[in-house]
């Protein structure tokens, strides 16, 4: 009975580790943000380090014609026994899923957090936790989806001379 309990408990822990980590991240992350007087929804971040799996702009019909609502983001995890957030993938989900872009945790830059780390206001662990919180934040992911859609549909021509002769 004891062994069965231990085995079942271990299995349950393995299955629920991600939701549990997510809950911990949300709670601890919000405490950290509150302590620093910041709100994840209001912090600015940059899209600069987004990795695209398609060319920009893109004229492939299944990419170009996809509606903005079909752009979905999904969290990618790493670590079998100690889960952590690895990246956010942005895909076009229509008839079939087409992965179009990715923002990895290591390349995701939030200037305010970087500044706090530079000034020594947060430890490396706190910095990582806060960045993870930002990465999976609903607003951040929605902004990623919008940005990827914008980049895919941007104009290829750029007039550096503002209409004047070069």
């Amino acid at each position, binding site marked *: 009975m004891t*062994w069965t309990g231990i085995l079942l408990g271990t299995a349950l822990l393995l299955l629920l580790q991600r939701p549990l980590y997510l809950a911990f991240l949300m709670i601890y992350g919000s405490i950290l943000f509150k302590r620093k007087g910041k709100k994840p929804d209001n912090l*600015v*971040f*940059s*899209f*600069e*380090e987004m*990795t*695209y*799996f398609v*060319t*920009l702009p893109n004229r492939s019909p299944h990419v170009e014609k996809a509606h903005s609502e079909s752009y979905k983001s999904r969290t990618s995890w*790493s*670590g*079998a*026994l100690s889960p952590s957030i*690895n*990246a956010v993938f942005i895909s076009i989900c229509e008839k079939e899923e087409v992965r179009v872009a*990715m923002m*990895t945790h290591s*390349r995701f*830059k939030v*200037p*305010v957090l*970087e*500044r706090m780390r*530079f000034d020594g206001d947060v430890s490396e662990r706190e910095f990582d936790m806060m960045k993870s919180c930002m990465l999976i934040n609903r607003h951040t992911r929605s902004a990623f989806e919008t*940005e990827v859609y914008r*980049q895919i549909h*941007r104009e*290829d*021509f*750029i*007039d*550096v*001379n503002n209409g004047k002769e*070069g």
Partner: protein
Amino acid sequence: MWTAAVSIFVILCGGAALFLFPGRLAGWMFTAAVMTASVFGMVLEGADASGPAFTAAVAAAAVFLNLISLSAVVLGVSVLFLYFGQPIAWIAAVTGAAFFIYTGAWMIRSREKKETDWMDFYHHQSKNLHVLREISLVMQSTLEPTRLSHIFLTSLTAGYGLGYNRAMLFIHKGNGEFYGKAAIGPLTAEQGYDVWENVAVQKWTLRDFILQQKEAESNDSELNSLLQTMHFSNKDSSILYQMVADREPLLLHPSSLEAQDQLSGWMASFSISEAAVLPLTANDKIIGFAAVDNIVDNRPITYEDLDQLMPLVNQAAMAMENAYLYEMTKSMAWKDGLTGLYNKRYLEQQLAHVVDSFSRNNKEVSVLLLDIDYFKQFNDTNGHLLGDEVLKALAEVLQNLSGESGSACRFGGEEFVLLLPGASLEEAGQTAEQIMEDVKKIETAGAASQPFGHISVSIGGAELRRGMTAEALLHEADQAAYEAKRNGRNQMVLHEREMYV
């Protein structure tokens, strides 16, 4: 017990074989041997006696081969022992489970590391390709050297570009002399964070940065002022000498430089802890070099970075060389060789543009046409070389008075035209007065022997009116200049309203 001894012997032999003949095949042979020995042992002597040997052998093989499935077998067998109630099986269970967890975790970690490495590699390649594509498109759209420099430096520094914190451009003026031309980036790390936050708020892309040239120039004015005082010679820098000779990029640390090397002073002035120096080569000659560093985030620059930077640097070098050649050709086609003023071809083109702009914006445009008085007589008396000196001196006067939007042109021979967009006829008259004053002060040998006792000019002025063509405007100015000559020279006449000086 002999089976356990055989198993241990096989493990030792296998370990030695793996050490001597490393490779996948040796690993498989070793695994097959230990498993066979252990299974035979279990059949002959019972599970309890050879179980631990089997567990140890298979687990060791699993560790050697990094096979998680074999570790799983160990765990399964160990659990079986446990349920059969064999006391010795406790040890087997713990050992097997430990090996299972260790090998499994190790495998997952190594797979994740490989994935991360691939993602990083992909990110770099994809970003480089995007930047190259975008920059090659943008560079095609201009032939202006300053704009090209801005595009190049932006592509090195913008987050959507290659993302270095700071980039500087040095131009080769010949004989191994390099001058600081332009730079983008912060002077200090603190300044860098401020700019970064601002950029993140604006959500600027690479294109936005390229279009914001004026703003970038004003943001980085302090950096540019310092850079433009920099001047290096490859005679005083072994690093520059090496770069010019090899035409290869270099990675610089303060420790890698000799104290007397000029680049040491540069690194100290800009608080550079590490920099990449990249030669700009076009048509088999060095036209300058670019330098990048990461003053804000202190991200290390690797040799791999140098390789990734070079395709962009080479493309920029070619574009800049083309732009310089174009500028030179344009200057030769549009400028007068003697005076350096614009020529008649340029005047005609510029007049057409100004007239077109007038019809849209209705902004005032005036023209002054000048003729040097008794110039033939001056040449006959003093020689053509002194005559050329007078032409050059007058050109300088006109150049100084043409203002920001005006253009001074040599119309032909001793005739000059000053095109003054934005100036009314009255303002043009004031400029003409100033010209006459300044011309009077030209001190050239033979000037005093001129009929007025100094060099003098006759000036005709006219103002553009609605519906007027460029030719008509020039004609009116010419008529006024003729009138000034007819009235005795050394004076100006404004068309419609006559004034005598």
